[in-house]
């Protein structure tokens, strides 16, 4: 008998069916089942009704301890009172206005003061906007075409960042992409030679936090070698800190790894769920950034700027990177213990603030998917093949509850697989 009974999702399912009628795939992208990661589908809540702190509730009233944090934006806790108060206060004064609000300038100043490499900030809405801006900026400055990616990359959904076999993408869209293994200096040198020096930028996440495999942290030495290579060849180094930003180091993940990127891209943790992204860069790129034709209808809305200011100030006060490392280590230790006690080998990888999980008892990941489904259907929302996120509202009691549900789910899977 399971300690945590399984949830039912009848109402959520009804809402999802309505979504399927009017929205392609119901919920497109990573928040929905269309990428095939909700296995089996009936175990997952799909649609939420409300959220608070580190929890959300589905349409059936089931409560979930959420370790995905909206895939990153929830950094302080859902509905953080300080951030929401700042946002609501700004809303009363104006949001999307003809002349942008002074909040934009305050926000840029705060980023320049906070982020080590930032001499300026440029604002947009999504992570993809930010990485696209960075690549345009690098090309405008260098007058070169090619961009180097590290294998397993993900830098958003604009055509240049995708692959030629993705629907709607042409080989020409990605003709200037060069993919090399992570930190392979020989491959970088070879790419430089083969392109005759036509490399505008290297774009990379701070470490390899890809899906379907154990995440691999970087080192100071490896990043220093890449930084040196870029300096020697006049290549712009772009840090895609969209996922990791402010979770490893408030001064930027490049700072965390002991280097200075030329452009750093932020989004998820910037404003605790209010919609904005930013790219910050070094002084020598400011003119190139100014030269770009790159803007959008809502990019200078004031409410997210107010939220961002409140969010960054609170993250500083709490020292969230230290907090997240401690909570991540405590949580994953508890998960590993629960696994061991049930005969499972749980591999934890990546930075503790963004830990990645994999049950290593089989190489097909099917056991892992079973366990994740049993966790989710008992109120612990985790993901099968994506890194997880810590938020500042996660308490020690929440960690204990997460470990207990994880244990319960392990025992359910163990009963199903007596061979373990």
């Amino acid at each position, binding site marked *: 008998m399971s300690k945590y009974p399984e949830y039912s999702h009848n109402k959520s399912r009804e809402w*999802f069916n309505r979504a*399927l009628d009017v929205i*392609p*795939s*119901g919920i497109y992208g990573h928040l*929905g*089942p*269309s*990428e*095939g*990661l909700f*296995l*089996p*589908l*009936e175990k997952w809540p799909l649609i939420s009704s409300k959220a608070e702190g580190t929890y959300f509730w589905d349409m059936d009233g089931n409560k979930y301890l959420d370790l995905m944090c909206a895939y990153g934006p929830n950094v302080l806790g859902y509905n953080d009172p300080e951030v929401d108060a700042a946002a609501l206060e700004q809303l009363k004064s104006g949001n999307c206005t003809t002349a942008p609000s002074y909040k934009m300038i305050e926000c840029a100043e705060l980023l320049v003061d906070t982020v080590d490499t930032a001499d300026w900030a440029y604002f947009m809405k999504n992570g993809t906007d930010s990485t696209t801006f960075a690549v345009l900026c690098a090309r405008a400055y260098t007058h070169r075409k090619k961009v180097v990616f590290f294998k397993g990359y993900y830098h958003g959904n604009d055509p240049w960042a995708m*692959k*030629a*076999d*993705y*629907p709607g993408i042409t*080989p020409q869209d990605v003709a200037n992409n060069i993919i090399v293994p992570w930190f392979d200096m020989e491959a970088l040198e070879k790419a430089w030679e083969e392109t005759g020096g036509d490399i505008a930028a290297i774009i990379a996440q701070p470490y390899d936090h890809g*899906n*379907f495999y154990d995440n691999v942290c970087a080192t100071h030495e490896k990043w220093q070698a890449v930084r040196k290579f870029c300096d020697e060849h006049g290549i712009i180094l772009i840090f895609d800190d969209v996922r990791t930003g402010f979770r490893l180091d408030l001064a930027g993940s490049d700072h965390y790894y002991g280097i200075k990127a030329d452009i750093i891209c932020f989004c998820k943790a910037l404003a605790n769920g209010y919609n904005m992204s930013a790219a910050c860069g070094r002084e020598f790129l400011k003119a190139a950034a100014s030269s770009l034709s790159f803007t959008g209808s809502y990019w200078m809305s004031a409410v997210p700027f107010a939220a961002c200011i409140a969010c960054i100030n609170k993250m500083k006060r709490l020292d969230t990177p230290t907090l997240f490392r401690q909570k991540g280590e405590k949580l994953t230790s508890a998960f590993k213990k629960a696994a061991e006690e049930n005969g499972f080998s749980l591999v934890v990888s990546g930075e503790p603030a963004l830990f990645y999980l994999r049950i290593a008892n089989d*190489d*097909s*990941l*099917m056991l892992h*998917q079973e366990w994740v489904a049993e966790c989710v259907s008992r109120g612990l929302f985790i993901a099968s*093949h994506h890194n997880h996120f810590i938020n500042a509202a996660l308490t020690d009691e929440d960690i204990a509850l997460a470990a207990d549900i994880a244990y319960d789910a392990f025992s359910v899977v163990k009963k199903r697989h007596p061979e373990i």
Partner: protein
Amino acid sequence: MIEQKALAYANMYGVLGTLHKLCELDDSAKKILQKIKKPISVCFDVKNGPCRTFHFDKKGCKITEGAENADCKMSFSSPEKFNLMINEGKPGVPVKGIIKLLVFLSGTFTELTNRLTELLRPSDEALKDRAFFEESTLLTMYTVAGAISGLANSDSIAMISAGNTVDGDVSLGIKDKAQVTIRIKDHRFETLYTEAQNPKAIMEFADIDLAYGLFGGTVSTINEMCKGNIRLAGVLSMVDNINRILDRVSLYLS
């Protein structure tokens, strides 16, 4: 954009690659095989393309790679020429066992391929017969499965998907009806017409009607996946890449 070389692989591994299942499953094909007096092995050798040998006897058809043990051989000077044989019936150049080959191709082989065409491109009227409908859908699945590997190893776009696929067996099938295995090794794909014993990933359609709709493009793969009618499990990046190749299959074989 269709590439002629990749089309030749899709035709050889997808369309002609289904002949052995036709001979195994279809009563009409079994009757046609009874006309064979002596076993015959026919090789289709495409310059800068695939080369496979089809071994026929009264019991059925087996397919082997290359020209070894072929009694008869037909050469094609280019993938385009081979594709003309598949699409328009224009033969290549007989180079071995010429008379035997021409007699077989113009007789039994043509009857078999005509029957295959009836099943792979069925009329609406024929599909009203449930047994025919099921057989047609199963053979379509085998054709698609063969073409997945053919294209994964030859089409420039599908090869990108193959290049991102890790080693292992993917089980592809229709629940309680049929399963095939797509085996990936060093980014090369091979279709096995047997159930995977230890699959690394699974993609299984809930029933044959759903499979028919998916193959014919009348229902949405994503929608059905979201409805839970397509069972997925395991290393989903493998399934993801196969889905991208499936998109190429529909381009090549539609």
